[in-house]
């Protein structure tokens, strides 16, 4: 009888574990408020001027990406500038950090803890064997039962681990209280194949309150490497909060001919409104839609639609100098396949299929930014050229249209392919993608980030202009 009771109790306990295990629901928004929540305009910035606008984008690449972006943050902390008559650090002027995957750990930690990044992040993440802890959590018998639940996956275990070990249970309400920079952690909406950014503007159509979401969950979604983890689930509460679609969506949906890119953004935005068709969303690694974290800032640079549109800020005279620093931890292993006449095996082929399109897309994204800046610069030079000809041919005449507002543009790229020494370049380009790297590699990544900034022509010019 006693043995029978024990069996029943164990069976009941296991069933309860399976039944109780579920992902944490993203909270429902009681009422849509377009001015509330985690948005750029709601972030206080007592020490940060708007006129010098600095954007950082951090790529994916596990601890390699986190350490490289951390090295950049260290360099910005040590870079003294003078702006509007006040001496400060360039780090204090960072307005936006847009990140993906490994880079999201650095971005989120700085957003939540500010200077604490330089005091605790090394021990909390960079030198910690997070990979080992993730694998270890899979060996816990309790987790076997939890993972048997259809609504609890490996990404939820990872999210719990990050929450406990790195982010101290902090939520987006805590991130909002910290003020600037505006941290954009990017994942990928699996059904739309589109970037999904953890900001209230993205959660509005879902009628969900981002303030109640743990930051660790956003970082987990952003670094949700396919197959290794399960997709991260969000609930779509659309239709329950009197959400009013932003004007641009209705306009953009008419733009299939003149501007397919805008039409596509509008089409994706509308897809979240149908909670019957899409009661849930499933998120994968942000790297699948943009492995360099630059697409969001690019849209803000090219469009009046985002709430933090840079076009609008420039039009309103808020920005005098615009700086974009792209931190790219992309690797490029040596020609290992081409040393043998045998075709590469299935694992190598799958790895190539999984990574090469992402790298090519990142390259194109960086090029788009370069061309955008060149276009802006060219428009100003065209105007100045015409004005010079007018003054030469018709002295005393003025241009029939006003000039574009003056704007200083600085585009800085930090990537291993900028390393001049070939053996050193190969060393960094061959580093593994993992959540655990040897201490020496982490230290080398921090060092090379500082050195690459030092040798960047635009970064040098920026520091000269800001003396």
């Amino acid at each position, binding site marked *: 009888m006693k043995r029978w009771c024990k069996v029943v109790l164990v069976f009941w306990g296991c069933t309860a574990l399976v039944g109780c295990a579920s992902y944490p629901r993203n909270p429902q928004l009681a009422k849509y408020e377009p001015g509330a929540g985690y948005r750029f305009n709601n972030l206080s910035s007592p020490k940060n001027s708007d006129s010098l606008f600095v954007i950082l984008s951090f790529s994916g690449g596990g601890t390699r990406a986190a350490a490289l972006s951390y090295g950049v943050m260290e360099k910005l902390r040590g870079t003294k500038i003078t702006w509007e008559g006040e001496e400060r650090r360039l780090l204090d002027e960072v307005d936006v950090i847009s990140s993906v995957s490994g880079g999201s750990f650095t971005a989120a930690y700085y957003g939540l803890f500010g200077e604490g990044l330089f005091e605790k992040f090394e021990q909390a993440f960079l030198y910690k064997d997070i990979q080992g802890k993730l694998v270890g959590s899979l060996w816990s018998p309790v987790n076997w039962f939890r993972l048997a639940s259809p609504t609890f996956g490996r990404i939820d275990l990872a999210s719990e681990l990050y929450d406990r070990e790195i982010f101290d249970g902090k939520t987006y309400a805590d991130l909002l209280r910290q003020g600037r920079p505006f941290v954009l952690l990017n994942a990928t909406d699996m059904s739309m194949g589109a970037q999904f950014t953890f900001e209230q503007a993205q959660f509005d159509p879902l009628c969900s309150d981002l303030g109640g979401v743990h930051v660790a969950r956003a970082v987990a979604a952003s670094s949700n490497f396919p197959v290794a983890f399960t997709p991260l689930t969000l609930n779509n509460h659309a239709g329950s909060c009197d959400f009013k679609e*932003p*004007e*641009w969506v209705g*306009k*953009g949906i*008419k*733009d299939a001919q*003149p*501007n397919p890119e*805008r039409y596509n953004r509008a089409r994706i935005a509308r897809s979240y409104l149908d909670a019957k068709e899409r009661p849930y969303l499933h998120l994968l690694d942000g790297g699948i839609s943009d492995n360099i974290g630059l697409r969001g800032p690019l849209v803000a640079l*090219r*469009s*009046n*639609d985002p*709430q933090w*549109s840079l*076009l*609008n800020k*420039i*039009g*309103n*005279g808020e920005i005098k100098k615009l700086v974009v620093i792209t931190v790219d931890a992309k690797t490029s292993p040596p020609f290992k396949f081409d040393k043998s006449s045998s075709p590469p095996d299935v694992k190598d082929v799958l790895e190539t299929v999984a990574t090469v399109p992402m790298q090519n897309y990142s390259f194109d994204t960086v090029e788009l930014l370069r061309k955008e800046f060149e*276009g*802006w610069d060219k*428009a*100003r030079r*065209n*105007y100045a050229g*015409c004005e010079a000809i007018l003054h030469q041919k018709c002295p005393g005449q003025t241009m029939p*249209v*006003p*000039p*574009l*507002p003056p704007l200083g543009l600085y585009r800085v790229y930090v990537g291993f392919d900028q390393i001049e020494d070939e053996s050193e370049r190969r060393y960094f380009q061959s580093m593994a993608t993992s959540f655990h790297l040897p201490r020496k590699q982490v230290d080398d990544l921090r060092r090379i980030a500082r050195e690459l900034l030092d040798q960047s022509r635009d970064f040098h010019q920026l520091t000269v202009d800001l003396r």
Partner: protein
Amino acid sequence: MEYVIARYPVERDVFIDWQAAGKTNRILMVEKGHHRFDLGRPGDYTPDSHDLTVESTTELTPLILEFSPKGGIS
């Protein structure tokens, strides 16, 4: 990139698709496509808004949108 100037006798805010995007009589950078332009509150100007497609402009030949005070210029 497209270029637009909203003309009005005095300086006022210009809203593109309900977001503050610049000032009147200055050149604005605008994404190609359908947009609504207005001058916000008070609504003492005409027309209430311009709803149109912005394309094929340059920094030297921007689209000019005319607004005027209701009842004419005093």
